[in-house]
């Protein structure tokens, strides 16, 4: 079965082509084609998972795609437990999001085009997780970036949407530059693009540790861009301009996790470079904290979730940096289910309220019961409440951090506290309390079945998917997805209790402030107004980048074009031309007056001389005799003196 896995990405690709070329005018059919294709991919992925579960080895299938001297570029697939898990994550979320989209996007004038883009995305993402070499993964890496661009700017009439798409593409591509240079450095040194061959080479010491660290950090640059880590995290919140199901699929569950996947896939390399791993862990921890703190004060429901996503991705990256291949990827999986759920739930709310502002919501529990319950389940899971999925995966990471370096565990706990707080701030404001906007509240309604059923399924996964990683299981996630050997950390009860306590206190604080109102949110805000302002404005990263990168770059471009290209180089070219014209004019004058003048002048002189001399030739003998006489006298006189 495994050799046919290449079909998995092909179904959505086919669907993309079918929609673009044939069914673009038939929205209903287009959505069916797209969902059918991803359902087939899901089916095949499921078979792959079962196969790999039965025989958990790494299989590789490849063909030569392009021969370069000393360098083979392959098209191939690498299938191991991680791939199998990722295939499941991508196909399940993609399928549910597409079903949900039928309701969410109903009536949109570009309905078919939307589904074609989703198909293209699913193809690219599946290709990414199946890749067996650096070249191939980079291709799909860029393609998911393209589809992300197209879908963020899907409602391109809105300037903010097209701006956001552009920003996402360029920001992630900046990270990709580092990625690309890292690939060059690593692969030209070890002489292969193939993952497994490169790992063998690296393990046998074919690359010096300095170069290895350098290339590992450069490659991580790609992950920083894609997974929206500091300092390239600025694009993801803006990406919320896209349709909400897109945010769920691409900007929460799958594509943004590609960076995490990349680091996991290259674990053999990071495992050998302590400094690179440390960089990874620090960037992850820092981002997790930074983004969570911003999420505390945001008022746009999707932006809160976006910063939460950045923060949770930081969590996973931190885990990988600490060597937690199992923990990081496990959290990736559980996060995909509850974050997709939260986004789709937010979409359901937005669909009914036509606003993103949580302060215009309130009391929605009464109107949208399914959405509210599933959303709260998702929030509990994200907050890491026992025994939901998020609890188990977060616990794995905290446990790992505690064993490796307690400081990271502290950061992890702080982030967990903030996470619980901001999620329940959201829940209490949106779903409880009184309706703040009566008009919108009255029009609020539960979404159609096609949207709520995916919510229920995802809620189910948010509760139970993490159970495969319960540490007491003899056969579970950690004995399936691991790097080199199973690292079985002894479960730590105290840590579990502490983590639960931290999460609960975050929820309680949100409860006290936003439900009970015992502590006034207004007063808190005024008390810490400078901090609030800093957080509310996201630490002014956008303003900073604008001031130090974007505007100077445009100024430079303008300067180079107007002052240098036109002002200097072209000026010189024109000056050379004009000088030539001047020279020709000058030589013409010279020609007329000097050269020609000389020729004519000689003529004049000769004629004039002739005329003068002619006067001498009189033909009268006495004149000649006089001249001779006078001449002789002159000579004698000269002789004497």
């Amino acid at each position, binding site marked *: 079965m495994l050799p046919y896995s290449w079909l998995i990405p092909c179904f959505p690709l086919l669907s993309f082509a079918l929609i673009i070329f044939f069914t673009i005018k038939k929205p209903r059919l287009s959505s069916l084609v797209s969902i059918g294709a991803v359902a087939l991919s899901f089916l095949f992925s499921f078979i792959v998972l079962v196969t790999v579960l039965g025989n958990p080895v790494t299989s590789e299938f490849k063909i030569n795609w*392009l021969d370069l001297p000393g360098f083979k570029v392959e098209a191939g697939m690498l299938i191991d437990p991680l791939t199998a898990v990722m295939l499941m994550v991508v196909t399940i979320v993609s399928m549910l999001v597409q079903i949900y989209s039928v309701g969410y996007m109903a009536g949109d004038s570009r309905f078919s085009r939307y589904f074609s883009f989703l198909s293209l995305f699913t193809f690219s993402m599946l290709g990414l997780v199946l890749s067996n070499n650096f070249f191939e993964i980079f291709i799909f890496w860029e*393609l998911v970036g393209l589809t992300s661009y197209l879908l963020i700017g899907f409602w391109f*009439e809105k300037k903010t949407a097209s701006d956001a798409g552009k920003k996402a593409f*360029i920001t992630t591509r*900046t990270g990709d*530059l580092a990625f*690309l240079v890292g690939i060059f450095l690593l692969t*030209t040194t070890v002489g292969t693009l193939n993952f497994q061959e490169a790992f063998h080479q690296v393990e046998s010491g074919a690359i010096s540790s300095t170069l290895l660290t350098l290339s590992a950090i450069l490659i991580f640059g790609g992950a920083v861009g894609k997974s929206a880590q500091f300092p390239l995290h600025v694009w993801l919140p803006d990406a919320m301009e896209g349709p909400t199901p897109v945010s769920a699929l691409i900007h929460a569950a799958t594509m943004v996790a590609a960076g995490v996947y990349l680091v996991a896939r290259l674990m053999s390399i990071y495992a050998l470079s302590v400094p690179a791993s440390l960089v990874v862990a620090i960037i992850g921890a820092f981002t997790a904290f930074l983004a969570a703190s911003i999420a505390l004060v945001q008022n746009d429901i999707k932006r809160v979730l976006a910063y939460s996503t950045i923060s949770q991705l930081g969590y996973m990256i931190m885990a990988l940096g600490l060597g937690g291949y199992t923990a990081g990827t496990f959290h990736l999986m559980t996060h995909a289910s509850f974050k997709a759920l939260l986004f789709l739930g937010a979409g359901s709310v937005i669909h009914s309220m036509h606003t993103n502002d949580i302060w215009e919501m309130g009391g929605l529990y009464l109107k949208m019961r399914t959405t509210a319950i599933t959303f709260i389940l998702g929030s509990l899971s994200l907050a890491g409440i026992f025994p939901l999925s998020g609890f188990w995966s977060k616990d794995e990471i905290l446990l790992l951090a505690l064993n490796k370096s307690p400081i990271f565990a502290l950061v992890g706990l702080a982030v967990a506290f903030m996470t619980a707080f901001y999620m329940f701030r959201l829940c209490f404001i949106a779903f409880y309390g009184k309706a703040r906007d009566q008009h919108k509240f009255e029009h609020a309604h539960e979404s159609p079945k096609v949207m709520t059923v995916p919510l229920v399924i995802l809620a189910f996964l948010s509760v139970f998917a993490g159970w495969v990683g319960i540490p007491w299981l003899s056969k579970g996630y950690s004995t399936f997805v691991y790097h080199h050997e199973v690292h079985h950390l002894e479960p730590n009860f105290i840590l579990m209790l502490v983590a639960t306590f931290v999460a609960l206190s975050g929820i309680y604080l949100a409860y006290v402030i936003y439900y009970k109102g015992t502590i006034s949110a207004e007063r808190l805000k005024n008390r810490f107004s400078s901090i609030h302002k800093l957080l509310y404005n996201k630490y002014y990263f956008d303003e900073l980048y604008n001031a130090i990168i974007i505007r100077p*770059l445009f100024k430079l471009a303008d300067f180079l074009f107007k002052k240098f290209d036109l002002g200097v180089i072209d000026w010189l070219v024109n000056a050379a031309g004009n000088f030539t014209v001047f020279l020709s004019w000058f030589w013409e004058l010279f020609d007329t007056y000097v050269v020609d003048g000389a020729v004519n002048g000689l003529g004049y002189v000769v004629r004039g001389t002739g005329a003068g001399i002619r006067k001498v030739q009189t033909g009268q003998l006495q004149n000649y005799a006089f001249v001779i006489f006078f001449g002789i006298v002159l000579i004698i006189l000269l002789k004497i003196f």
Partner: protein
Amino acid sequence: MSFPILSYMIFIPFLGIIAVLVLRKEQVQAIRWASALFSFIPLVLSFFLLAHYDSSTSTMQFVEKHTWIPSLGVTYFLGADGLSVPMLFLTALLSFLSVIASFNIKFRVKEYFAFFLLLEVGMMGVFAALDFFLFYIFWEVMLVPMYFLIGIWGGPRKEYAAIKFFLYTLFGSVFMLIGILALYFTSQPHTLNMMELISQAPLLGRGFQLIVFVAFFLAFAIKVPIFPFHTWLPDAHVEAPTAVSVILAGILLKMGIYGLLRVSLPMFPKAALYYALPLALLALINIVYGALVCMAQKDLKKMVAYSSVSHMGYCILGISALTVTGVSGCVFQMFSHGLITGALFLLVGVLYDRAHTRDIDAFGGLWIKIPVYSGVMILFCMGSLGLPGLSGFISEFMVFIGSFPVFKVIVALAVLGVVITAAYFLRMIQKMFLGTFNTKWEALTEISGRELFTVIPLAILMIGVGVYPSPLADMIRATLENIVHLVTG
């Protein structure tokens, strides 16, 4: 191969000129179709060329050799190898598509097509000639029709642009002529046979190589164009009529690169090694500087024109590395840039014909009004900014990975060009196609079938090479291995 296919490819357009001249100038339709026919036949022949080319060897194929001026040792010597076959195909394809795109020319149609076909004769000849005398003749033959095509059918500043192009290129040609003479008088026995000169190259002294290399380099650098000889390009490209811009960007720029690969590298191997680093630095300037200047453009056509400066930088970088992968990337980039930029100029022309402006800021939201045009345009922009799956990515990747082991820092900096390129293309896409629809363009009509016909083959090839580059890579490998071997030994 006894069938003189290369001569046919060169001179069938010449028959076309005669046909066009015989027709009366009122017979516009007949003139158009005659031109289309006489540019279509070389395209068909070029398919034979592709099919019959034996890529296992680097020797010249389809060779035709006849004595011509025995007293000077001048021969009529044609041949094609892995370097010229793709270029001949590209020339035939773009010429044919450009003729189709020129059907909307209304002014002095007869002369236009006559000049256009003459241009094709010159281009084909340059890529097939293996005798310097012939090479130089074809090289100069291109100049004249190009001068008139820009000067008569061009935009508002056509005279300035035409003269600038003509003089600038002629300036370079003079140096090439000196170089050719230098080679002729140094060779023993005196010869203009390029193959013979290549085989004698190891005998040339280092000092001689260093000087004569520069003479040829000036001619080629102006053509490419390499910074700081590039300012003729934006003027010529912008003022030229659409089809001529296509040829300029698609074929003429490649002649500079072709010359470097055909002449400079194999004939002056020591100089090529000596100048590798300066060349790489110039390439870096071309890539980054060209891309930055693009960001400052307000005129769509000028932006595409400057993007060529940036994209040709990749070719130079690939050459400077003197590795087979780098040089292969260079040839891929020649081919790919011909397809992509050719299509971009065609599409700019389509819009200009309707809107009579190319000001990027004047549009907005066009994707709503003309979705097919916008979709195709965005596809080619993606190709130009190096999106994987399209040909531009393969060539950039090959150039980078081929030059990285040689010039690590330069490549790491050149990669910056990739992100700036993305920035200016996305900015243009956003301003023109996204955002709210500018109702001023309510009357804008969708791209016509004929216009679509001119870009579809280019799109297919762009995707084809991007997804399955092996055939092209196989075709050029042996030849380029030989060229690199001649230099690096």
